């Protein structure tokens, strides 16, 4: 069978760092080909080379048998290569249509023919089953829809080789299922797909073959039918990986977090958390399962004091913390691993060391009489970097220069180290590889075992099922059910999250 894409011995060097070390990737026509590797293994780099964003330092690229020089994305477009980037390449203030036509706009008399464009987008979206509203603004639509826009962008340009760089990291389970259907439909249309994902389950489900890379080197290409998740995980990490985390039985303590009748509005003034009740005890992990946009973000922001609650009460260890300023809440004993690590978690332009005391800088021993003790701060940083395996050249490196996984480890280290009674973890493993996920899950469970309360919010059903002691299903701002992960299935949870079946909420 002929290859549509052949990347032979591709080498890419950043400064002294070899990101791609003679990697070979061959994609057959009409297949879904997975590219698998740890964080920082060089997957995105390889794909950026294929898409013309980076120039390779060595190797050869052939498209449909012909050797090509992909000097910029225009060339890639002309060759029929389209890419859905790991970090979306969408202009927030533009409409869906404007984003799709950007760079190849249909015009009449020098003016963009926006009506015609919208019609074309609509037709395209119907043809491939990619539901979008062509006139909606990007900032107003869900992440899932944004991703469909990204796909439409490539299809609009007539791409028949599609690269998906971690498309599922930001999607809810429902959206992932939809995406899988879309990919299958695309392949049926004769397109070829390269899929990057950390989720082995997805690879097993949709891919035909898989190429594994590790630390910039190609490890090999396998038929998906001939392998299994454990083997793949071992290949990419270089050691055995545990998928199910071992847990001791729950030692339930007194209630730590009690939320009663909480109402929170979102930024646009719409009620997002709607008379919600929830209790988290010491020594347990409560997972919140729900489709994105059902009030999870607002719930967490209300607990941590980032937004004001309209009504209701939140208590921590019996002490009222509703609508206190964030600092008071932090001091009361709440730790928070935020959903958006770049926006909330870190000051990216600070050294990693200074990021380690973001909440505690003003306290002894970091600060004495208004003067910072950098010695203590960096000592602390070194200790946490060691303890939480943060891979960084040193503690003086800016947080910006760390990979996402390592940034996340730094945040977790900081939060856990403060020894909070309640630890809130929002999407703590988004976009991380299996090795890092394993590490983080272990840490969460460790907290629980030490008698802390942990509130986990995640769109990953796997994660919620795996780590939680109880699962609270959130739907339209309410907890609609509380289930025991051992007594439920993904199917049942999915139904609950979709709001179709209401169990009597056994809230207490």
């Amino acid at each position, binding site marked *: 069978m002929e290859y549509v894409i052949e990347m032979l011995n591709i080498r890419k060097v950043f400064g002294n760092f070899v990101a791609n070390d003679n990697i070979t990737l061959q994609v057959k026509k009409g297949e879904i080909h997975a590219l698998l590797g740890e964080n920082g293994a060089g997957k995105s780099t390889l794909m950026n080379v294929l898409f013309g964003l980076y120039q390779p330092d060595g190797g050869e690229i052939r498209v449909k048998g012909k050797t090509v020089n992909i000097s910029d994305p225009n060339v890639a477009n002309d060759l029929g290569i389209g890419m859905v980037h790991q970090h979306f*390449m969408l*202009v927030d203030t*533009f409409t869906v249509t404007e984003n799709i036509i950007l*760079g190849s*706009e249909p015009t009449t008399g020098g*003016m*963009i023919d926006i009506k015609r464009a919208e019609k074309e987008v609509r037709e395209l979206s119907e043809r491939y089953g990619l539901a979008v509203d062509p006139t909606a603004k990007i900032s107003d639509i869900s992440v899932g829809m944004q991703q469909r826009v990204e796909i439409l962008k490539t299809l609009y340009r007539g791409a028949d080789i599609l690269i998906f760089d971690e498309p599922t990291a930001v999607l809810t389970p429902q959206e992932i299922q939809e995406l899988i259907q879309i990919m299958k439909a695309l392949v049926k249309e004769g397109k070829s797909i390269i899929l990057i994902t950390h989720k082995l389950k997805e690879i097993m489900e949709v891919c035909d073959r898989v190429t594994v890379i590790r630390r910039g080197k190609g490890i090999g290409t396998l038929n998906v039918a001939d392998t299994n998740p454990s083997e793949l995980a071992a290949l990419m990490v270089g050691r055995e990986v545990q998928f199910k985390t071992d847990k001791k039985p729950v030692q339930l303590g007194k209630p730590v977090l009690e939320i009663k009748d909480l109402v929170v509005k979102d930024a646009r003034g719409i009620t997002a958390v709607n008379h919600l009740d929830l209790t988290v005890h010491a020594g347990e992990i409560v997972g919140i399962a729900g489709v994105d946009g059902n009030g999870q973000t607002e719930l967490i922001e209300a607990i941590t004091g980032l937004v004001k609650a309209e009504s209701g009460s939140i208590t921590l260890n019996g002490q009222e913390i509703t609508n206190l300023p964030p600092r008071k809440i932090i001091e009361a004993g709440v730790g928070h691993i935020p959903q958006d690590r770049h926006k909330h978690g870190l000051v990216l332009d600070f050294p990693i060391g200074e990021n380690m005391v973001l909440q505690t800088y003003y306290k002894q021993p970091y600060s004495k009489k208004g003067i910072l003790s950098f010695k203590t701060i960096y000592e602390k940083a070194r200790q946490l970097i060691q303890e939480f395996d943060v891979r960084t050249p040193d503690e003086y490196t800016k947080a910006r220069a760390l990979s996402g996984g390592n940034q996340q480890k730094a945040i977790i280290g900081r939060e856990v180290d403060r020894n909070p009674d309640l630890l809130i973890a929002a999407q703590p493993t988004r976009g991380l590889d299996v090795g890092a996920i394993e590490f983080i899950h272990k840490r969460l469970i460790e907290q629980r075992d030490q008698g802390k309360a942990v509130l986990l919010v995640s769109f990953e059903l796997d994660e919620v099922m795996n780590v939680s002691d109880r699962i609270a299903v959130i739907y339209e701002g309410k907890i609609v059910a509380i289930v025991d992960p051992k007594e439920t299935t993904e199917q049942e949870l999915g139904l609950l999250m979709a709001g179709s079946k209401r169990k009597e909420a056994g809230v207490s």
Partner: protein
Amino acid sequence: MGVYEVLQIIIPSAIFFAAPLIFTALGGVFSERSGVVNIGLEGLMVIGAFVSVVFNLTFADRFGELTPWLALIVAMVVGAIFSLLHAVASITFRADQVVSGVAINFLALGLSLFLVKKMYGKGQTDQIQVGFDKIDVPVLSHIPVIGPLFFSNTYIPSYIAIIFAFVAWYVIYKTPFGLRLRAVGEHPMAADTMGINVTKMRYIAVMISGALGGIGGAVYATIISRDFSHATISGHGFMALAAMIFGKWHPIGAMGAALFFGLAQSLSIVGQSIPFLKNVPTVYLLIAPYVLTILALAGFIGRAEAPKALGTPYIKGKR
């Protein structure tokens, strides 16, 4: 004086005061929409004023009535070329755009005064003798009520400025060029992946701002000061910058803000002769335009969203 008489004085002078600001602020809109901060508007106006006056003085005999128009075009071209310095520094050499803009301001004033001394042997030029004519627009100025307010005692460049604001709006919001321009300013990498040459777009945008700033300065010098010295452009570029922000980086908004400044300015001047304002100490009238602007911003205009990538050089392949 009755209200109508007052308006009849205020409005035409607001319009002529606003014209240079409108051009320059529109230039700012183009540049900043593409993601390049342009604090050098002041300097670009200086260059425009200088070039137009020198051209006018040199060629008035040869070109007669056409001179000021040709001077505008020359100022536009020279402004565009001069702005290349800002473009090269801030786009190609990744200079801090604010710093580069500050340098533009220093250089423009230094260079033009240096040249004036070199060319004329003194610190300021003579007065130009051919300017733009003050006109009553035929037909329109005879419309009752509105005619005398908006179409009498005005200058053609003022109308060009206003028309140009609509042209700029059309270009930025309705054409492929405009879509690409805005994309480059919001998310250059996204634009890059769509095959748009970010560097080229930004160069074009900065040069447009140079061209328009040049026109703005030329209009100011030709209509208002009629000569060129160190004091000709004193803060007008910063006012244009303020108009651009006030107008939320939107051409029509920027025009509106410039007109607002013009109105406040002429109100503060005419106010001295309006009966019930007559006894107000002059200082209140002098600061009125600025106070009004602050109140307007704090009161009902509020937050303005700058283009997201504003101020950040685009480096291919950097995240």
